[in-house]
């Protein structure tokens, strides 16, 4: 043996070095890996004080906290996917949105953007960045599904929203004041100029365009878009605007910003849904956040839904605020 070693010492040396490298490579590659554990054939998730918590036990505990949200997410995705056809336009839009989001994440997270984006997607029930485009397609389909549902049920949904929230399209003319309780001569002169222009028959929008100090709305002829009782206006402005009938113009309304003259441009579903479709949809969903789950539930009944047990069904209905009667 010693003779062989002496004769082939170089080969032995190379072999020992090679073997050492492999051993080190194996050690280095595995040292940070997470080892598994089982107990009675079940995977263990973690252990504390020599108690092994199995995946099944962990599942039961977590399901109590977050399970129904996951089931609703699945139900929502499946129902909207089955209800709305995927169009080329949706796919193209989703592709652009996905590219934009990736750029945003790159800008915010740098080289770690993939991990951050993947984590965000997993929280929404998707697996990886490859699913980002699918997420946007599903989002578009979900919005279309809800819009279709609301349009089909507007006679039952809209009246309650209208009575409670008084949606309307508004415009305004603002004369900014340093202290609206003590307007300066210059400020009052502008107020007078507005009044004279309106009295002369100039359209409200044109007067707003020329005189209003709210430059963002002035370029839109004073338009503030669709508002309702939940819109975050200062209280005096909101209160005055909700009292106006269609076409009516308020007296000057005093706020901390100055004097406002408000015009109600339109009320009623027909006009608002034509010119302010997205805002009206959002307003109704803000007023009643359970419109969407109720729509999902109604469609799921058409498609046929079954549950593993009654508890899941009962918990899901409670989560979605769907009564027993709605299921029948």
């Amino acid at each position, binding site marked *: 043996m010693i003779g062989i070693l002496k004769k082939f010492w170089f080969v032995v040396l190379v072999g020992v070095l090679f073997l050492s490298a*492999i051993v080190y490579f194996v050690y280095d590659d595995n040292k940070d890996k*997470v080892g*598994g554990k089982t107990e009675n054939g079940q995977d263990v*998730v*973690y252990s504390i*004080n020599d108690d092994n918590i199995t*995946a099944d036990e962990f599942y039961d505990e977590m399901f109590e906290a977050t399970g129904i949200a996951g089931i609703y997410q699945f139900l929502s995705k*499946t129902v909207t996917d*089955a209800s709305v056809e995927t169009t080329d336009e949706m796919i193209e839009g989703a592709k652009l949105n996905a590219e934009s989001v990736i750029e945003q994440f790159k800008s915010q997270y740098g080289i770690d953007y993939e991990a951050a984006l993947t984590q965000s997607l997993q929280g929404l029930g998707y697996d990886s960045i490859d699913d980002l485009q699918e997420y946007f397609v599903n989002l578009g389909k979900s919005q279309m599904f809800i819009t279709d549902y609301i349009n089909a049920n507007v006679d039952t949904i809209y009246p309650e929203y209208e009575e409670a929230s008084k949606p309307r399209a508004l415009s305004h003319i603002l004369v900014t004041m340093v202290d609206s309780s003590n307007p300066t001569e210059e400020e009052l002169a502008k107020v007078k100029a507005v009044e004279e222009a309106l009295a002369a028959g100039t359209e409200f929008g044109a007067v707003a365009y020329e005189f209003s100090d709210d430059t963002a709305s002035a370029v839109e002829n004073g338009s503030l878009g669709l508002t309702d009782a939940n819109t975050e206006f200062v209280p005096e402005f909101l209160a005055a605007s909700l009292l106006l009938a269609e076409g009516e113009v308020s007296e000057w309304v005093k706020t901390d910003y100055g004097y406002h003259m408000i015009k109600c441009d339109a009320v009623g579903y027909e006009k608002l849904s034509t010119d302010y479709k997205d805002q009206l949809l959002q307003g109704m969903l803000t007023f009643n956040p359970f419109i969407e789950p109720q729509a999902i539930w109604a469609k799921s009944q058409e498609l046929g839904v079954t549950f593993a047990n009654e508890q899941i069904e009962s918990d899901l209905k409670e989560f979605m605020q769907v009564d027993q009667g709605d299921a029948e």
Partner: protein
Amino acid sequence: MKKLLILCASLLLITGCSDANANVSNPTESLITVGDHSYTKGEMYNFMMSQGPDYFVISQAQEIIANAQVEVTDEILATVDETIESYKQMLGDSLVMYINQMGYEDEEAFKEALILNEQMIIITETKVTEKFEEYSATYAPRQIQIATFASQEDANSALASMNEGTSFADAAKEFKSTVGTDTLTITNQDAYPTNVLFAINSLEKDTLSEVVAGDDEKSFYIVKMINNDPNEFTEAAVEKIAQLETIVNSTITTLFEDFNFAVYDKRLHDAVSTNFPDLLK
């Protein structure tokens, strides 16, 4: 030679081993089916493992540790009930919304969290008591009264009055101290201006500081040292030190070590490593 080659090949095979991911025992069991699409237990498990499982596990583990160390006594329950009652008086009908915003499903879940908190306080205070001498030397607990004034003139007048025999509280009130003058138990971790901390470190028991300017020189302070020997106010000192963030964190870390906390799922391990790195060995 052949054996050597087999050994090398075996070693290389081991490098192909992946991290472990624990899974439920019946992952293909359907939970809900819509049309011909099913959502299985395995998919649900993967979804839940992406919803912050580390916070859930740490909370669960902490509960196991706390229950092993501290029994839930009637006294603890009474304290918790009192706390909830005071929340109810403060928030009225908004209590449920407040509880939900804090992340608790209902009042019962909130109560459980408060019980756990009480247990952890007891555990931490026990640890502080065991190492009282060491922690006292490190964190220098003191009992003081402190008055804050908006002007040096008021502070000077208050100090003169105190030196003539007026009580600290009366003199502070007379010259418009902007803070209360109750006896406070503090440590060197409390956020006082530099000059105030210096004064606290140098005062003997039952002595007054000079008027001390704050860092911005817009506030002026007088400090009275009530007691600079922590052994004479042990309970208050223990309570104060046990509230320090470093002490709370080190207590939890030590507990997790002592109770051999270990994770056997890669996803959970990564999440805990990111948010609670000190709790993994």
